[in-house]
């Protein structure tokens, strides 16, 4: 299975959940939004996006429904579920803890 090697493992889930917390989006738009908000820092290949979305859907964190998209074609829109919102809080808290710890380590002064 190809992994988003350029992302810390597991953070793609967090990013997707966070993006969907703002508004329901379909897969392509999620990819665009990721590129948009992170500049080009976070390279998420289109290929790894869909397995991640399907995994989150099977976990029950997000749900899908088919709706007409902005160009009036049928697209699969993903929405955050209530359990998904709780998961997002947990993941975000984890991330904050981890990143704080890592920055503390990185900022250690060499003597």
């Amino acid at each position, binding site marked *: *299975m*190809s992994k988003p090697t350029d992302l810390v493992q597991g953070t793609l889930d967090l990013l997707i959940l966070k993006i969907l917390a703002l508004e329901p989006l*379909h*897969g*392509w738009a999620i*990819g665009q939004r990721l590129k948009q908000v992170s500049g080009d820092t976070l390279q998420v*290949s*289109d*290929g*790894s996006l*869909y*397995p991640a979305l*399907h*995994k989150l*859907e*099977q*976990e*029950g964190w997000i*749900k899908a429904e*088919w709706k007409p*998209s902005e*160009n009036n*074609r*049928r*697209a*699969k829109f993903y929405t955050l*579920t*209530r*359990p998904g919102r*709780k998961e997002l809080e947990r993941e975000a808290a984890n991330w904050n803890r981890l990143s704080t710890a890592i920055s503390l380590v990185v900022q250690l002064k060499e003597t």
Partner: protein
Amino acid sequence: MRLEHWFYTVPLRLRSLFWRAQVEAELDEELRYHLERQIEVNIAAGMSAEEARYAALRAMHGLDQRKEECRDMRRLNFVDNLWRDSRYAIRQLGKNPGFACTAIFVLTLGTSAAIVILGFADAALLKPLPYRDQSRLVAVFESSPRNARSIVSYLDFTDWKNLNNVFSSIDAFALNGGFTLMTSTGAESVPGTRVSAGFFHTLGVTPLLGRDFKPDEDSPGATRTIIISYAAWQRRFSAREDALGQTVTLNGTPSTIIGVLPPDFHFAPFGGAEFWTTLRSTDPCEKQRGCHNLMTIGRLKDEVSIQNAAADMQLIAQQLSKDYPDSNRDFGAATLVPLRDVIVGDVRPVLLILLSGAGLLLLIAYVNVTTLLLLRSDKRGREIAVRGAVGASTARLFQQFAIEGLVLAAVGGLFGLVFAEWGMRFLARLIPGDKLASMPYFRDLGLNIFTIGFSCFISVLGGLLFAIIPIARTSLSQIRTGLKEGSRGNAGITWRRLGSKLVVLEVAVAIVLMVGAGLLGKSLYQLLHVDTGFRTDHLALLSLTWPPASYGKDQQKIVLEREVMSRISSLPGVESVAVSLTSPVGPAWGSSNLHVVGQPIQGEHNEVLHRQVSSAYFTTLQAQLLSGRYFADNEDASKPLVAIVNRTLAKKYFSGADAIGKQIYYDWQPQLPIQIVGVVDDLKEGPLEGEALPVLYVPFEQKPVAGFAVLVRTSQAEALLLPNMISTIHAIDPLISISNSQTMTERINQSPSAYLHRSAAWVVGAFAAAAFLLSIVGLYGVVAYSTSQRTQEIGVRMALGAQRRNVYQLILSEAGRLTAMGVVLGLGCSLAAARLLRTMLFGVSTWDAPTLLAVPVVLVISALLASCIPARRAGSVNPVEALRSE
């Protein structure tokens, strides 16, 4: 939280399992949408259409791989694995047909036996009776110190009806049923009885056609009306609606049919009843408060408990015993019993015993299959190790075991259901018609939601058992050791310990069932060979009755009696002929009250059976005269009244003193004192299994009765005489109806208690045989397996000089130890189980030494014989080869 989670996930799992094509199509569409958007963006950035398309696909890093990854995401679910594991389990079973067939056969045997018996128990004990709100129905009995459940006299019943405050209605039916119906072909005895007018209303039964009895239709002056059963309507009136209003002649009285009962109606005390008419207190018995011939059924008022009702009835009974001391002095109490208990009666203990037997058989079947599975999982050690090594998690392995167990149990359960359905029909067909009539709740046996539910329940339970035991055995350490080539590890030892414990259990259960079957079989033998007090072979019997109008006068009855006796005694092979009120060995009916002349009357109820017999009665039966004389041929009403009493009566009422010459009277007729002229040894006038009852014999010609039994002693085969007897009697008068034509041997074999004992003995015997076989096979399996595990050890021993004899000893001592443990455990449990059997035992104690001795001997010998096969195999081991295989 968890629940909300499932709210989203469960529909998805179901969707990907059952609507796979749709899910696939959606995946395609989703990815196509993405590609199209990307192509649009690429074209807008200046690429050619083809370039744009390739670039979009490249960005996906392989479309098909991504699709597969998406599918992997949905496959990570339990249900899908379940499906794959089930298919794998079925394939595994198919690969090993010997194991699969044995296991499924054993499970089918155990499950179907349990379900069949449960079906019977459900029909008798659980299924509602076909009456409205049947839990409110109770049977009410008069109670004396000697008999808590005495039937009721008509006058007491009417007083109960008027005085009680606890029943919304109370009704009665006569216990001496049966009518003579005039048909186009002559008189016919038909089953039926007389009931009080509200009887069906109290039961809550509405006729299918026509109407119920009106409240005053049981008064003596009312026109005679009858309600017929559905079966009678079908058979005698071809289910024609115009049967209503037709007049039939019942017991010589024209009666109008006013109703037909619904098809599902049954009433066990008169299971086969075709005709129901009203009481009208026509029986002379119903004019006397001391003459008991009715059973009463009451419907409790709402909010009245059975205890409250019993208390109220108690007060009424006490009042009646004060008001009518002559007849009711002893009946100062009443007993209330739920109607179902009366209807199911004797069948309940038998069913409970059979249910326990079936439960034990089920247990042994499951234990047996568990043993087989253990044996197999041992052989599969390598497979498990490999699967574990390549990454199957322990949970994953457990799941697969659980599924294999469940598949096995499910197949066994399914086959069990099929065979149970068949078995129930088969067993129900084995019940003879007259027995089925007294147990009408067994008429429509078959699988129902309850039995099917039970079968599912035990299958799931069994499946879990089959899963847990191999799992418990497959420790993680074994996954490691199993990989080593040729490793014996400690698997053999673990297995031997667990497997042998299970075999001990099997042997113990088999012992319990075999002891139970032995005790029941011996009871049956004792019952059939109970001392009746007379010679039971070469004795032919029949009963006859006639329309009351035909032989109304005593003299007519006597003429008929003499004519019947003289014509039958001239038949070839007949040695002697006698008549009696009813044949010996049967229900204890025909009782009355006895008083000794000169003793003060204090209203006590001295119940004795009375039998009006011809002079040859005792010589025909070959009874034993203790003192005095038999009746003479010419002792009729012109001679002094005489009586013969049996040993029990003499002992009870004359306390051992010589009864000869004493004067008594019965039926409250002090004006007719009777002199006792003889004492005979007890004859079984009542039921086969009952205690000896006091019996009073009087000459038929001094006290003729309306209907009698004819008893014939013959030198030929008695069954062949019966048709001749019937035609001879019909030659005298075609209107005489004949019933109960049978030989005495048949009468004894078919008596209700013999029937119940025989059914119980056969079914438990079959269970015991199955359990015996299973336990021996189980023992063989364990010993054979442990022997095969010890081949190398045996090789070493023989190389070091052990003789073949020592090897035999080694194997047989293991088998012997297991059997001995099972026997000890089993005998301990049998003693407890036999106490539960107590109510069904007759003439056998629960500590029956021969049974308790014979069963273990049979089992130990069979077990040792079975172990000889692996012992011989072990003894013929070639030490060189055994060592080389190390």
